[in-house]
């Protein structure tokens, strides 16, 4: 066990896989010599060479396409898209090709590509460095979609993703790179070293896909969330002294419906929280499944806590961010305290 922040955990996962499997390669803008703008691949090109850790042109569409071709030729590319806001130029290759190849070739061809990309706000990035587009990818059949919320899961899930034979879109909530964040920017930053999930096995280990993590068991209400919102939701519930069961999905596709539904059946109340915009966001799918599966157990309408349906504005970051106040309002409503 070592204390790692999320960047170190991701770096460790890639280091281990580069060593373990000669077919693993890393690629992306500034990932090689420089080690990535968030330093996730730092030192890996020096260690494994330019053939394994590859600087690419600034062309997300070309990066994804090349990764597909490499994967078809037996490699396991891990491609970094520098910011999730810049994944769209690669959207056609992801949606029309990466996600469909196994299907259209009846399994004869497939591309085990992992696409890592930092998402979410809270770092003063403005509208083009703060987006959370995960919902879009959950609608594209053939893709697995992950979003860890801590160093331990980040490492274990990334290793699982790299070894998985299906394409994986791996979102990294960049606000959590250096420490858990409860949504209050005025508080001093807490490092991962002070958090149990910042204690990470230095060796090889995996975290299974499709298994949600019950961060806090509770009986009063179920909060279904992932990414940046895990700690915000926990803090809000704690302040309200609510015995909330907090579920960190970690894996959006495949989705752990059992864990979600058995919790809601138990509590009868449910809040869904994510940082992404609300309208047609992934929260809608979660809410729909809960409504379909647990309707008769619900004692109050399910509430959604999300970012607003606007771009992420540079000057109003904290008015935009779904902080504790927004979570608290939803909890009040679902507990019928108003």
């Amino acid at each position, binding site marked *: 066990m070592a204390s790692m922040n999320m960047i170190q955990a991701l770096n460790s996962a890639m280091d281990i896989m580069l060593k373990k499997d000669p077919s693993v*390669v890393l690629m992306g803008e500034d990932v090689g010599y420089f080690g990535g703008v968030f330093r996730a691949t730092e030192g890996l090109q020096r260690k494994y060479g330019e053939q394994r850790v590859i600087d690419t042109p600034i*062309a997300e569409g*070309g990066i994804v*396409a090349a990764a597909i*071709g490499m994967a078809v030729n037996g490699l396991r590319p891990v491609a970094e898209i520098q910011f999730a806001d810049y994944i769209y130029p690669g959207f056609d290759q992801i949606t029309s090709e990466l996600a469909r190849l196994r299907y259209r070739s009846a399994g004869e061809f497939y591309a085990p590509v992992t696409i890592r990309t930092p998402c979410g706000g809270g770092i003063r990035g403005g509208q083009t460095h703060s987006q959370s587009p995960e919902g879009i990818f959950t609608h594209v059949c053939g893709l697995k979609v992950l979003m860890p919320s801590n160093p331990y899961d980040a490492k274990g899930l990334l290793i699982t993703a790299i070894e998985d034979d299906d394409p994986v879109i791996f979102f990294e909530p960049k606000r959590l790179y250096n420490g858990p964040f409860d949504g209050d920017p005025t508080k001093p930053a807490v490092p991962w070293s002070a958090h149990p999930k910042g204690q990470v096995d230095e060796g090889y280990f995996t975290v299974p896909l499709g298994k949600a993590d019950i961060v806090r068991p509770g009986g009063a209400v179920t909060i279904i969330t992932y990414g940046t919102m895990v700690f915000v939701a926990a803090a809000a519930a704690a302040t309200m002294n609510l015995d909330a069961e907090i579920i960190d999905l970690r894996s959006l596709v*495949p989705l752990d419906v059992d864990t979600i539904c058995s919790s809601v059946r138990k509590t009868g109340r449910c809040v869904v929280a994510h940082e992404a915009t609300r309208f047609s966001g992934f929260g809608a799918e979660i809410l729909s499944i809960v409504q379909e599966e647990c309707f008769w157990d619900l004692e109050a309408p399910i509430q959604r806590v999300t970012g607003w349906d606007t771009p992420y504005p540079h000057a109003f970051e904290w008015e935009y961010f779904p902080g504790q106040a927004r979570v608290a309002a939803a909890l009040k409503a679902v507990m019928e305290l108003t």
Partner: protein
Amino acid sequence: MQLSPAGAVMRPDINARARDIESLSRDLVRVLDDAGHAVGPWHPHLDPADLQVGLRHMLLTRLFDDRMQRNQRAGKISFYIRSLGEEAVSVASGMALRPGDMLFPGYRNQGLQIVRGISLVDLMCQCLSNTRDMCKGRQLPVMYHSRPGNMFSISGNLATQFPQAVGWAMAAAIKGEDRLAATWLGEGSSAEADFHHALLFASVYQAPVILNVVNNQWAISTFQGYAGGEQRSFAARGPGYGIAGIRVDGNDFLAVYAVTQWAAERARTGAGPTLIELVTYRAAAHSTSDDPARYRAKNDQEHWPLGDPILRLKQHLIALGEWSEERHQAMAAELEALVATSWKEAVSFGTMTEGPRLNADLMFEDVFKEMPEHLQKQRALMRAERK
């Protein structure tokens, strides 16, 4: 259109630097002259037996196309795309490559499938989406693939295969293999971003790849000018990106063979990628859903200077004394019969209207390697519906 006489264009050393051979992107490499003689430095000096194989592949491609076209008209298959007049583009380049080389074809490269020896029955079953369909009923007709044949799955989305082929070639280099990748797209498709990404990545990583632009003058209803072909040849894009670009008579079997062989040697010896523009003509409609009478003159093709690739190779073989009308008739009859018996066998595995059908459960497989719960659930619902 700018034509160079047969034999006129120089053949540079295979490791010439792209910038020193730019004229190749403006000229037009041709080997067969009007009398059917092979002339000039690009003459590949193939064995007559190989030429006969090439002729056979091209003729089989055409007869296969004709038959499938009729089958579509007869309602046996939903859709079809012919390669009429473009047979040399696929057959000659396919023959100039090694079996281990990976091909990323477009939807009009059936000649490659023939060269790689994919059985007609397999191709027909794919078009029939029947119980022996290699795609398990998931793809439109002609969207073939073959792992053993080293032929990548054809996509309905234009141009996507171009940069994928470059990625495949980058991986071959990383793994230290001497296999190369070759890919094809239409001149119209060269407008897509994928074309740019392919040239750029091929140039930056000097990948062992051959990028083929099949310039058959038309993209459904739009003339090649709408893809930029009026201002400049498509081959000329290559030098702009620092990779070799070469323009070749796509209806000249020998020229296509020679140019592909040259590009393949370049790639294999580490001299870098090549962009080949194959100048040809789409003699048929775009597809069975298209009617060219709406956008081009009926006699448009008569003005086409580069002739018919099959007739031209036939004429050459006859001039060599290695072929005759009689042998040609006989081969045609034999291949007609092959196509007919293949079709008989293919339909025995089902058609859209008769015979055995694929199990609809297959719809839910291969979305992922293992079927996730939500798809198992949906499969159960689908079964219940069909009751």
